[in-house]
């Protein structure tokens, strides 16, 4: 629905292909090997989660895939094109909402239109639809400090989607929210995604979120992060609020816990 609201809207998202992708920050003695080498093969419209312990390079992966940071070795292609500069066909959501204090909720979203120089009426119409879909009606004229944490994060999701990007990158987007808000916003995101089928790379350290949202979960090892296991989540959508009611969910979750224990992420005695 969101995707089809405009002619430029496409039915499927971008593909991401990475080979031997590696990131080393700094050089010489102080060099920090943050990530890789890892391979990624994300199909258009796929919802893929990266899960792993803190500091394993999940966020770095997102920055490399969007071209915001250059790779130290290996290659990344988006839609078959090698990355040389930051891609703009993308929406980004971080753990902190990163909204601008001095703009209202709607104006924060419309920053996309102003900077990209897009047609105002068209983007405004899309923003209005997103505000309705994300349960933000009435929040348009409010400043971020007047909104709850959950609403701020909803506004930042609207900002990431308003220009109809082919890819959505989310770095622990629900990490700062309470459990009840998180469950609701997870469902709302899933419903939006089902309508638009954008490619989503979702970074999390919550097993619930990874299994609850993804087509495929990539489990990463401790730093320097490598992908140690790929788990295809074959559960019907939309997925329920209480994931525990699905027996298969527990199996997937157990597998991930098992991998973490094997990797030494958890040391339970």
């Amino acid at each position, binding site marked *: 629905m969101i995707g089809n609201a405009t002619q430029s809207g496409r039915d499927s998202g971008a593909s991401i292909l990475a080979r031997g992708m590696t990131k080393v920050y700094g050089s010489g003695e102080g060099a920090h090997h943050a990530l890789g080498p890892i391979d990624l093969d994300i199909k258009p419209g796929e919802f893929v989660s990266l899960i792993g312990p803190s500091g394993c390079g999940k966020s770095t992966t997102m*920055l490399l895939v*969007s071209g*915001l940071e250059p790779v130290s070795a290996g290659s990344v292609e988006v839609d078959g094109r090698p990355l040389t500069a*930051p*891609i*703009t066909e*993308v*929406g*980004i959501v*971080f753990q*902190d909402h*990163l909204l*601008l*204090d*001095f*703009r*209202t909720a709607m104006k924060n979203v419309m*920053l*996309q239109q*102003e*900077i*990209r120089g897009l047609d105002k009426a068209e983007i405004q119409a899309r923003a209005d639809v997103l505000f309705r879909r994300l349960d933000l009606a009435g929040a348009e004229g409010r*400043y971020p*400090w*007047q909104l709850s944490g959950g609403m701020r994060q909803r506004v930042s999701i609207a900002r990431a989607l308003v*220009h109809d990007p082919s890819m959505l990158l989310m770095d622990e987007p629900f990490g700062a929210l309470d459990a009840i808000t998180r469950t609701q916003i997870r469902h709302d995101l899933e419903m939006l995604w089902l309508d638009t089928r954008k490619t989503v790379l979702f970074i999390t350290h919550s097993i619930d979120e990874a299994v609850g949202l993804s087509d495929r979960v990539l489990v990463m090892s401790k730093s320097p992060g490598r992908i140690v296991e790929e788990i295809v989540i074959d559960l019907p959508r939309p997925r329920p609020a209480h994931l525990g009611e699905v027996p298969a969910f527990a199996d997937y979750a157990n597998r991930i816990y098992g991998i973490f224990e094997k990797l030494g992420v958890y040391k339970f005695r």
Partner: protein
Amino acid sequence: MARVLYPALAVAVFLGVWEVLVRAYDVPLWLLPKPSDFLGRMMVDHALIAGQAWVTSQSIAFGFAIALVVAMPLALAIVSVGTFERGLYPVIVFLNIMPKTVIGPILIVWFGINQMVVVLIVFLMCFFPILVDSMAGFRATDPRLYYITRSMGANGWQAFRHVRLPAAMTYVFAGMKIGIVKAVEGVIIAEFIGSGAGLGFMILRASSFMDQTLMFSGLIATALVAMAFNAAMLASEHWLMPWARGRAAGH
């Protein structure tokens, strides 16, 4: 309404008690004038006092404006260029610690007794708070926000105009509010030592003639000038930063 009424009442009561006491104990004029004396003097000599107040206001406005125009770009340069940060900032901290009025006699040697000296001292008084807070402001933006603007295809200028500059404004205004208080404080001292005009000069002259009434009139005029500048600052903040309205009360 009550916000204006109660303070006005308090001032009226204060002046009334002052008037009654000075009359009752027959305090001589050269020691302590009555409110009716100096308020009356303000009426009679309003041309003189207003003229001097205008000179003082100009000095504040120029000194403050120059401080703002120099401090904001300098703050941005210091925050953005590592060499400036390491080389320039210690010098600025040193200059900030030094009492600014000490420079007065040196400036008089350079420029003579004139308004330039006053403007420069006002500039020095409000320059540092504006600089320090502007630096904090230009540092305040979360670097990840630039990832977001770059993913929007924003160039450096757009990121500055849409994100960094407005984000810094809350801090710049905090510095400006401290700066304007320092400016009105500094301007009178500067006019004491280095000027042939302005309220400070007028008060000093009145002092040498034992003209207590005019000194008290000058004191009131100085307070009015200070109030006007503070009010102008608050009004421009209210106008330029609508997002901050009610924020302090709301949190």
